[in-house]
């Protein structure tokens, strides 16, 4: 039987169980072990009891698979609460909230049985030795490769279908011309004393141009060389000479 190799659970003196967790290959394995030790029916699991036992066992759990065990603990606690909810008395058939857990346990038990069968098959196989001695490979060119266009095209299709987004972003550093923008702003201020900030871009601005102007404006404002105003919400920013426009 699949669980026969698991160690016996020693029921501790009130403090819970003493379990070697390396012996379990996961929370379902541990759960099956608890059920089997107490000869409980998988189809009718006393959830409240098993949830408490499970929690007390993983209390001393090593860290390697803790997340998986904790997730199972959470499921058990949720089931425990659901089992406490009053059943509807309207005659409708009651859906057992444990059904999903039972299905998973049965499925896992089946996998365990197959794994045991495979272990025995591998054991039988390992009693037959292949030929041990292999002469060093002769000195000759590597064997011809087998490759054809069909294979390659299939690979191309696989590659293409694996691309989640065909857009490749290219992030590049581009020098911003803050000095040039500063000169343009100074010229505009000298000429007019006040202007809308987008006028500093020139025709057909690039993002780099806009950023250059913005940086130049902020730097000049910091130095007190100009003042930036927004006359109304969403209105364009107005740039003015600091001296001409005293702060409010």
């Amino acid at each position: 039987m699949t669980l026969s190799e698991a160690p016996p659970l020693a029921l501790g003196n009130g403090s819970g169980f003493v379990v070697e967790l390396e012996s379990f290959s996961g929370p379902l394995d541990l759960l099956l072990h608890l059920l089997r030790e107490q000869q409980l029916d998988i189809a009718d699991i006393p959830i409240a009891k098993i949830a408490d036992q499970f929690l007390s066992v993983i209390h001393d759990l090593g860290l390697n698979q803790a997340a998986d065990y904790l997730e199972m603990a959470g499921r058990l606690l949720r089931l425990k609460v659901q089992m406490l909810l009053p059943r509807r008395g309207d005659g409708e058939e009651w859906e057992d909230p444990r059904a999903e857990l039972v299905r998973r346990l049965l499925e896992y038990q089946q996998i365990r049985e197959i794994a045991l069968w495979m272990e025995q098959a591998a054991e039988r196989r390992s009693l037959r030795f292949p030929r041990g001695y292999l002469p060093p490979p002769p000195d000759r060119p590597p064997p011809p490769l087998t490759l054809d266009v069909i294979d390659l095209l299939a690979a191309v299709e696989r590659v293409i279908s694996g691309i989640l987004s065909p857009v490749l972003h290219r992030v590049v550093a581009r020098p911003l011309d803050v000095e040039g923008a500063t000169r343009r702003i100074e010229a505009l201020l000298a000429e007019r004393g006040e202007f809308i900030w987008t006028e500093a871009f020139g025709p057909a601005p690039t993002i780099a141009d806009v950023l250059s102007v913005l940086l130049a404006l902020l730097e000049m404002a910091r130095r007190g060389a100009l003042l930036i105003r927004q006359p109304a919400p969403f209105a364009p920013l107005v740039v003015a000479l600091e001296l001409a426009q005293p702060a409010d």
Partner: protein
Amino acid sequence: MNSLSQLIEAALFSAARPLTVEELADLDPDTNGSEVRAALDQLREHYDFGSHGIELVEMGGGFQLLTRPVFAAAIERAQIGVRGSKLSGAMLETLAVIAYRQPVGRAEIEEIRGVNASGVLRSLQERGLIEVVGRSEALGRPLLYGTTPMFLELLGLQDLANLPKAEELSIALQPVPAAPMDEDTAAYVEAES
């Protein structure tokens, strides 16, 4: 034995891995698959009835010469041959899921076993027991895994059909009878999956 049987014997001996009928037929331009099969039969009979320490075994989709199991203990004791290392429980369980569900993705393996599978999958791939056989159409296009011929070789199986059938297992996987769900349970099951 005829000369084709001798040639096949020499080839199987030097390959030290299972050889398919096609590979063996390549040995001689004047032969074909059915002649190779006949020669293999002759070779198998020779080893079976000539009281030999080795025998011809069909596995992993091919044929291989192997020592008889009865001599394993003595060979191991004299430290002449070494048996391969055993697979861990986690590896065996993961192999079991893949063998029966292939092609199968990591999420399904983890759902069945209840534990994270990435480390085990890597180890099994490194040992050449499983391989990526495609990608799922599901979100994120996860990789799908399948078993390799080396997996069959490890278990000494001819092909996957030699694995035990689900109905031969003592625990049958019974579908849980589907009853109409109330809202609560439906929400729970949904959160669960």
